[in-house]
């Protein structure tokens, strides 16, 4: 039986491969969800009622159901109904389906945070902008946006840290992220079987990564501290 020291290179290699998937999902989700969240936020604040209600109902459905179910539905439902999967059975298809689920899910959470941020900017500033003859989009990008960003950093940080760990849900559609990689050694993989420590060790990866993120987000918060 090999010792833990001998297992380490193989295990870390596998965990690193899994963690790359985790990171990929994490960054792709953020890249997609940040802008999509803004679109949804505008929808939910729209003056056009049907759009506003539709958006809010959508947000309600997405926030009101578990991400795990959304993953299962988004990945399996098209194939079951259309008779042909739109994602493909390979790893790329699984990643794509996971990315879509995560982006939509997180965009809904972000949209509510954005909405709070936008609405917390005093209305007087918008009125002042209108008086000065600015267009609505000018007011948003030149007056509201930066103040909104400053205000939403703490709640968004919270979501970002949650996202780091939520990526592990993607294993339900067999996306081979780090927990999957760690769990493989329980059953047996690459000559190592019945080892629980690789699974437990994945926690260190999450911890280190969220530590780095916490520092980064703290730095961002301080950087934005030059105005009130």
């Amino acid at each position, binding site marked *: *039986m090999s010792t833990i020291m001998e297992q380490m290179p193989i295990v870390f290699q596998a965990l690193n491969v899994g963690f790359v998937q985790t990171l990929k999902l994490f960054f792709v989700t953020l890249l997609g969800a940040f802008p999509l969240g803004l679109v949804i936020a505008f929808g939910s604040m729209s003056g056009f009622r049907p759009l506003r*209600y539709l958006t*809010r*109902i959508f947000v*309600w459905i997405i926030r009101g159901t578990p991400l795990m179910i959304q993953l*299962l539905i988004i*990945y*399996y*439902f*098209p*194939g*079951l109904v259309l*008779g*042909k*999967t739109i*994602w*493909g*059975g*390979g*790893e790329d*298809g*699984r990643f794509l389906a996971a990315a879509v689920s995560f982006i939509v899910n997180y965009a809904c959470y972000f949209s509510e945070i954005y909405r709070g941020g936008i609405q917390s900017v005093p209305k007087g500033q918008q009125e002042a902008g209108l008086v000065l003859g600015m267009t609505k989009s000018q007011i948003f990008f030149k007056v509201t946006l930066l103040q909104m960003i400053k205000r939403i950093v703490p709640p968004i940080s919270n979501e970002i840290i949650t996202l780091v760990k939520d990526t592990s849900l993607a*294993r*339900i*559609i*067999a996306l*081979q992220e780090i927990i*999957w990689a760690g*769990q*493989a050694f*329980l*059953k*047996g*993989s*690459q000559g*190592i*079987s*019945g*080892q*629980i420590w690789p699974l437990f060790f994945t926690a260190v990866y999450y911890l280190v990564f969220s530590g780095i993120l916490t520092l980064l987000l703290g730095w961002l918060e301080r950087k934005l501290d030059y105005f009130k």
Partner: protein
Amino acid sequence: MKKKVLAAALSLALCFSMVACGSDSGKNEDNQDTTVEQADSAEASEETSSDESDLQYVQDKGTLIVGITDFEPMDYQDENGNWIGFDADMATAFAKSLGVDVEFVEIDWDNKVLELDAKSIDCVWNGMTLTDEVTSSMACSNAYCNNAQVAIVKKDVADQYQTVESLKDLSFAVEAGSAGEAEVNALGYNCTPVKAQADALMEVAAGTSDAAVIDSLMAAAMVGEGTGYEDLTYTASFNSEEYGVGFRKGSDLAEKLNTFFADSYKDGSMKTTAEKYGVQAALVEQ
């Protein structure tokens, strides 16, 4: 005013959710041909899907996607990350005989039927025990390998638990949905379902369960001297069972595979492959 808007929004939301439910159940009824028109459209869609046989579908696509889990000695990776094992090698040979490429995809075992139906995989080929549940939800090939469910206990107490009868007061950990779970439940023994056979072993190793029930092929590879579980051993066997390959329900590929198994058993290539992975003793004559 605000309250009114809120009330309107909420009631609208409620309506939507009801509409959603309503249309769902409506669709189900369609399939049971409630009206002539609906029946026609349902039939039409059925025809289009059965028009093309599963074999045709796979050949058009050019790849046979095989759903597996990492399961030595049936499907596992060599140092270069290629999938090998008795099942993997046979699947590769079968795909070759169909003139298509083979692609192995690791799946969550709980979702195997879902994966097949959603067409994200084309077959389940991973030392799958042919239980009633399996044969009723998939088109299965003939059995190609014998297996048994065996009890796993700690080595130091193994002497007391050599028969199935002697195990009756123990608490068991079994893989949810596995043949082992069915056996233990049939005997009425106290058991906890866990996610995988490996988790069941860990339960025993950690002392949270007294015993586990897993496949004998897996037990031979995973417990005892030279494995990760040196202080565990296997004792009584519960039943004997057989491994088969699962395809989508109604697929013509199962019949195709039976022919392939018969041919490769006759020309000895199946046996050669089995010897390579040490499972020749369990091979079933085709």
